């Protein structure tokens, strides 16, 4: 049951070979059995999941079911869920029960998907290792002494360990793709605006985007199809039809032009990761893809530009946590300023505080032009690099991360080194483009991911290429030992 695809599970559900309740109980029991080693869930909602499963079984019996009806999924704890705690992995929201559902939550409910629980993550999605969570780090199922990546580390670890067939994620600088790569699963961050941000707790609003995490591109296509679409409640949501991702999975790749950015294959890349990407190129060439070298001349400035833009937006977004209307409040405040300062000082962890301070500094009088304006100008140059590249090629391929999963604690004390683990993913968010990571090999038992980058709203193409690749390879079928 745990190795079946969403399409196969859905066929079983529709044919009444299995009920959603049985399926849901099966995954809940796997969570109970295995998650003590991973800490991938902050909240497991057994009761609500079983109720949703029974509801799905009624829909299936009455013929009102779609492809996700009755299929369990795990929801990143950044999406608001009415009546179930949404913590964003922060002490600040440890007691927060949202009074409404995020649009994504609502859409998945309407699709009949069954939410198993809320997954662990870096606090407020700020981190690349899942070590900044108030609820403790998530461990990588391939080696529990290593990180699963972040910020969607709980979702990634849960999918990799087969604790759920599907999981949601969000990606501001690589938070879907980087953990997908480090845990050997498939994750897609769509074009900015493709998935509604309404009810998705904000970190950096011009970069944040929700997306899908699954074992295969095919499974991710089903999940993304249910998440994507216009939402009038999100003023930045794209008002254009959603492509039929599933229908395009089998499209022929003959003559497709894919660019390999020279700047992504330098000394900063672990040569063994480079070799995995080269092997993937060979597989895709066999499917008719034509490769050529391209240049993204400002690639090296993406991480520095991001660490101005994202903290600036974060400092503004997180000013709402003031201890007055919801969330954590300090004990016995002396006065209003003490209430604000201690609430925030006690409610936020170190990385969140660092980013709020960097953003506050970059936006403060006298420094705005040197930091924020400059970073926004560089952002334009980075987006222009991609625009120029897409005049020559249809897609871009490269590594997702410079190296496989690192050890817990290895980078916590050195923020800049930690930030550089997103060196290949961040530019995609600055430009607002869609990106996908899919497993393409192993190094010493640890998964390696390749990243496909598409032009705006080319999600169907990314999923198509990854799916065709996965029909030729079995990296995405490997299961971490000890999670039978």
């Amino acid at each position: 049951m745990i190795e079946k695809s969403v399409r196969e599970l859905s066929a079983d559900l529709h044919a009444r070979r299995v009920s959603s309740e049985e399926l849901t109980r099966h995954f809940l029991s796997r969570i109970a059995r295995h998650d003590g080693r991973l800490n991938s869930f902050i909240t497991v909602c057994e009761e609500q999941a079983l109720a949703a499963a029974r509801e799905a079984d009624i829909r299936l019996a009455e013929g009102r079911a779609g492809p996700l009806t009755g299929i369990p999924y795990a929801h990143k704890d950044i999406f608001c869920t009415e009546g179930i705690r949404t913590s964003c992995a922060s002490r600040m929201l440890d007691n927060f029960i949202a009074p409404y559902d995020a649009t994504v939550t609502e859409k998945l409910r309407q699709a009949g998907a069954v939410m198993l629980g809320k997954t662990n993550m870096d606090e407020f999605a700020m981190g690349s290792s899942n070590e900044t969570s108030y609820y403790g780090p998530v461990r990588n199922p391939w080696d529990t002494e290593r990180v699963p990546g972040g910020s969607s580390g709980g979702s990634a670890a849960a999918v990799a360990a087969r604790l759920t067939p599907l999981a949601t994620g969000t990606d501001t600088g690589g938070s879907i793709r980087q953990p997908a790569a480090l845990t050997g699963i498939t994750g897609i961050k769509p074009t900015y605006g493709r998935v509604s941000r309404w009810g998705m707790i904000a970190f950096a609003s011009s970069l944040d985007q929700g997306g899908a995490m699954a074992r295969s591109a095919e499974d991710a296509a089903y999940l993304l199809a249910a998440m994507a679409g216009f939402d009038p409640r999100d003023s930045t949501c794209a008002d254009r039809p959603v492509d039929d991702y599933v229908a395009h999975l089998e499209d022929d790749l003959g003559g497709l032009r894919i660019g390999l950015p020279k700047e992504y294959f330098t000394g900063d890349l672990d040569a063994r990761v480079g070799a995995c990407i080269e092997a993937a190129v060979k597989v895709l060439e066999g499917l008719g893809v034509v490769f050529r070298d391209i240049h993204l001349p400002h690639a090296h400035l993406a991480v520095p530009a991001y660490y101005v833009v994202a903290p600036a937006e974060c400092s503004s977004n997180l000013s709402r946590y003031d201890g007055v209307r919801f969330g954590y409040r300090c004990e016995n405040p002396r006065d209003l300023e003490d209430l604000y300062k201690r609430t925030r000082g006690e409610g936020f962890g170190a990385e969140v505080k660092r980013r709020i301070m960097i953003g506050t500094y970059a936006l403060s009088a006298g420094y705005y032009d040197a930091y924020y304006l400059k970073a926004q100008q560089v952002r334009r140059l980075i987006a222009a690099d991609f625009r120029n590249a897409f005049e020559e090629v249809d897609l871009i391929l490269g590594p997702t991360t410079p190296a496989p999963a690192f050890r817990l604690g290895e980078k916590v004390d050195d923020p800049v080194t930690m930030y550089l683990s997103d060196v290949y993913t961040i530019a995609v968010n600055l430009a607002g483009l869609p990106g996908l990571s899919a497993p393409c090999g192993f190094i010493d038992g640890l998964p390696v991911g390749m990243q496909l980058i598409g032009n705006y709203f080319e999600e169907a193409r990314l999923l198509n290429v990854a799916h065709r690749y996965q029909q030729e390879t079995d990296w995405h079928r490997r299961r971490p030992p000890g999670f039978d």
Partner: protein
Amino acid sequence: MALGPSDVEKIAHLARLAIDPTDVETYARNLSDILAFVDQLESVDTRDVTPMAHPLDMTQRLREDVVTETDRREHFQAIAPAVDKGLYLVPRVIE
């Protein structure tokens, strides 16, 4: 640009963040490292480059000027730390 402890205290005040005095040195070092890293941005000439505030060229949509939200005050205030008679309570501001 390197930040000292007094810079950190000033920024923390602007951000309304209480910082443990024993952590100020560490924050000063971390923030200085991040700013030094960010300083690479100066290596590129950006004269005449229009700042990019948003990834998509889009304009704000307008909607009909009609009421779409219902009154859910009690629902929202149920999760507030302190309320009284429909009001949010904070420490006394005016003596």
